């Protein structure tokens, strides 16, 4: 948990990236403050993927509930059959919308499942980067507050 540990991980990541030189399309992206601290989804995408023009596509499969059981833990799943380089999830109404970016090296399935926080009812967008272009699927997730459970 010390600084040396950090360096070690950084080293491992660099080594891994080097090993993947044979696969030039994998740009190994670590956390980027420029992308994740943006207030607008388009700016976040621009900084994460170098592009912000998106095309809705029914090939992008986004699974998220219509009504969240609890806004603190909302299961979200993104999947596609396209050749994907990266996958991202945007939660429009959160203070900074970009929730996660995932790198999909060759041989890895274009699939990500995680659990997100949503402060209020919001549009959720799955973004798939394929062939340098961004494809999306969106849906609204209702977040209710108040009640016996919430």
């Amino acid at each position, binding site marked *: 948990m010390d600084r040396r540990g950090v360096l070690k991980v950084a080293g491992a990541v660099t080594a891994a990236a080097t090993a993947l030189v044979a696969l030039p399309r994998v740009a190994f992206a670590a956390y980027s403050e420029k992308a994740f601290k943006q207030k607008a989804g388009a700016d976040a995408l621009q900084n994460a993927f170098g592009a912000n023009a998106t095309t809705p596509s029914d090939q992008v499969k986004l699974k998220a509930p219509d*009504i969240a059981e609890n806004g*603190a833990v909302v299961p979200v799943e993104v999947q596609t059959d396209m050749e994907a380089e990266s996958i991202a999830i945007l939660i429009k109404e959160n203070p900074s919308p970009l929730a996660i970016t995932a790198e999909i090296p060759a041989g890895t399935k274009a699939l990500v499942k995680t659990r997100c926080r949503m402060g209020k009812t919001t549009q959720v967008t799955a973004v798939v980067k394929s062939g340098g272009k961004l494809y999306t699927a969106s849906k609204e997730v209702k977040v209710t507050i108040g009640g016996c459970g919430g």
Partner: protein
Amino acid sequence: MKKIIRNVAFGVIGLSVAAASVAGPEEDRQAFRKFYENRFPQVQPFGDFQNGVYSILPAAREQWEAIEEFPPYELSIERGEQIYNKTFANGKSLKDCFGEDGAVREKYPHWDKSRGMVVTMELAINECLEANGEKPLKYKKGAIADVSSYMSYNSRGQILNVEIPSDDPRALAAYEMGKEQFYTKRGQLNFACADCHMHTAGMMYRADTTSPALGHATSWPVFRSKWQEMGTLHRRFAGCHTNIRANPYKAQGEEYRNLEYFVSYMSNGLEFNGPAARK
């Protein structure tokens, strides 16, 4: 505040049921079960009632199943295992009380004739600790929920078979006290457990759907998303009472132990499937 008081209706609702009866526990249980079977015919098989509100809400169930892919209570089970196997200062451990793996969930709650009281699993855990010179645990969350998680996990699949021994009238009295608790309106909001979780089970209260009481006792302890941690059944009882603006009873006090005795008896025949994840 006066307005609130005036708005509290003392009218008797839910009178689709007949007047007072003196039926025994077994008749009670059959009527209880029949009530839920009639109200929620879509719950098939019957045993699915053990999954609480998810037995009647398909959309919520999908999210719950996604949570169950890697449930947050697994960390609690691990912590519980460590506590369970930890050697006491006197060289013994919880194993000396509950066996190698603690798979004893089906034995609780039970009527202890010698002491004339209902004994729950959490109470038994603390009594084991104290008997061995260890400090008892707090009853609502933390280590007690972890140990209970571990023991419940190892007991999954055991069938609820709570007995009310007929040779001890005090056992029946404890059951009756729990039953009265369940059906009695309390708090400023004037709700009985039975109002939300029986007569209007499955309906919305503000943003939430209430769960059927059948199966309420099967799946504890629970990792609640609202809590973001584990809690015991008595913690939930207290939370419900606070919600309806009634002062809660003490966890593991006589009132809640007897209430657990009653609701567990009502769920006889279902499986123990704790620990679980809930909203």
